[in-house]
């Protein structure tokens, strides 16, 4: 019974922590497939060590320690993509630990900002992020070059960032 209760408790905690962990891993490893591989390794490691988890501590903090280790392991063996340096990642980790304000604002405003995108931008984001379409596929479907699709995705992310920042300013005023 204790074993089963452990499963349920672990499941709940993992579900709660997973979005935070994914977003954090994506800062260091922007490729989403890689980030999910890292989260899978992290989930296995967490389950193996769950008996040592102190429930007095926030689970997400405990889990993030494992995610950082798995991220470093991944980067040490992954050579196929240009990555940030270890020092740069350490600096980002410190900055993230001390400042979660913008992440919280993104959480609050991104859905609203998504609604403000034009139809083409919206479809692009949906295809790229939510349907996991490759840029090559999106380019073929849209009759555009791969480079043009990358640029459009990047411009859309900048538009969303600008929109979130505008929403924050509106609230302050």
């Amino acid at each position, binding site marked *: 019974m204790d074993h089963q209760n452990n499963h349920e408790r672990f499941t709940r905690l993992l579900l709660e922590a997973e979005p935070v962990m994914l*977003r954090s891993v994506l800062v260091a490893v922007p490729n989403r497939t890689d980030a999910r591989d890292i989260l899978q390794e992290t989930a296995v490691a967490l389950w193996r060590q769950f008996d040592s988890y102190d429930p007095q501590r926030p689970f997400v903090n405990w889990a993030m320690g494992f995610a950082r280790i798995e991220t470093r392991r991944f980067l040490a063996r992954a050579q196929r993509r240009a990555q940030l340096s270890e020092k740069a990642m350490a600096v980002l980790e410190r900055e993230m630990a001390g400042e979660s304000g913008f992440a919280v604002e993104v959480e609050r405003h991104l859905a609203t900002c998504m609604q403000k995108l034009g139809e083409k931008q919206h479809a692009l984001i949906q295809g790229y992020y939510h349907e996991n379409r490759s840029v090559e596929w999106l380019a073929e479907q849209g009759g555009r070059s791969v480079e043009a699709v990358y640029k459009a995705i990047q411009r859309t992310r900048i538009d969303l960032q600008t929109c979130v920042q505008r929403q924050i300013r509106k609230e302050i005023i």
Partner: protein
Amino acid sequence: MRPSQDWNALIQKHLDGQTTEEEAQALSTGIEDDAEVRSQYLKAAQIHGALADETLALDVESEPEVKAAAPEQQKVLGQFAWPRQIAAGLVAGIFVGLLGVGMIWAIDSPKVEAQVFDIAHGDFETMAEGPTPTQFPVRFGEWAGNPAEVVKEADGNKILRFVRTANVKGTPDGIASNCSVFQLVDLTALRQQLEAGQTQGNYSLKLSARFRRDASLSDNELSNPKATLRIFLFQGEPESIGETWPQVVRQAEALGKKSIELKPGSAAATISASCILESDATVALIAVAATSGYNSKTPVPLGGFFVDDVQLTVIKQPNLPVEVVSR
């Protein structure tokens, strides 16, 4: 030092894995030495991370693709739903071999019990013919949402027809990519019943419905329409869910969804979506929908899509011994 615009372009390239070794090195140096570059990078990466979050797809009522050929299969590793599958696997002790690396295995398979949980007008037979209310439902037991109507077929069977896509909250410039019809289901009685039971187990809810697509002039030009089922479990009052829809999905205790592509005139298909029955959930929000297949802010006619026999089943999975095995 690069101008700010350059840094932004480089950061965006890096997020898409497009930077060369030299560019990644230059970006690393910028992040290490310049607080402004660091801040720009974190903001851009947090937008990128949030877009990769599966629940945002639900917020904007977009529908990730599930192939029609395998309506009962969950997506496997590499798709964005995997952490929930891991969690569901740990709780229910099923299907985890699908995760691709043999992470967790159920080592026994005791009897699974299923019990139908009555929902109001699941077969639409006791409803009056005509349109359903076009608003988000505020009370238990009523079908309401985007424009749809109950129609009687030649054999006397009543069925729900999806009329057109719309934005259920009437948000100006809001996305109208689907025609969703919702019902709020009170889980209180079910919880009491389960709590009164003597046996231990894990419970899940399976929502199923039979969809059909007739040939129709109004929607035969849609390129990629789908029929979709969604179930969300919440803790709270029913009226509060509509007030904050769709953002409220981020507070869902559990969720499940399934889509199927239907060709005009093809045979009716029953699909199901399941979620873990969380012990503190008090309300289930179920949604049947037909989607246009693209995001439009303009309503799209959907004359040929129908749904019938919406059913909620409580599945009891006895406590299973599961073990983690090495990779």
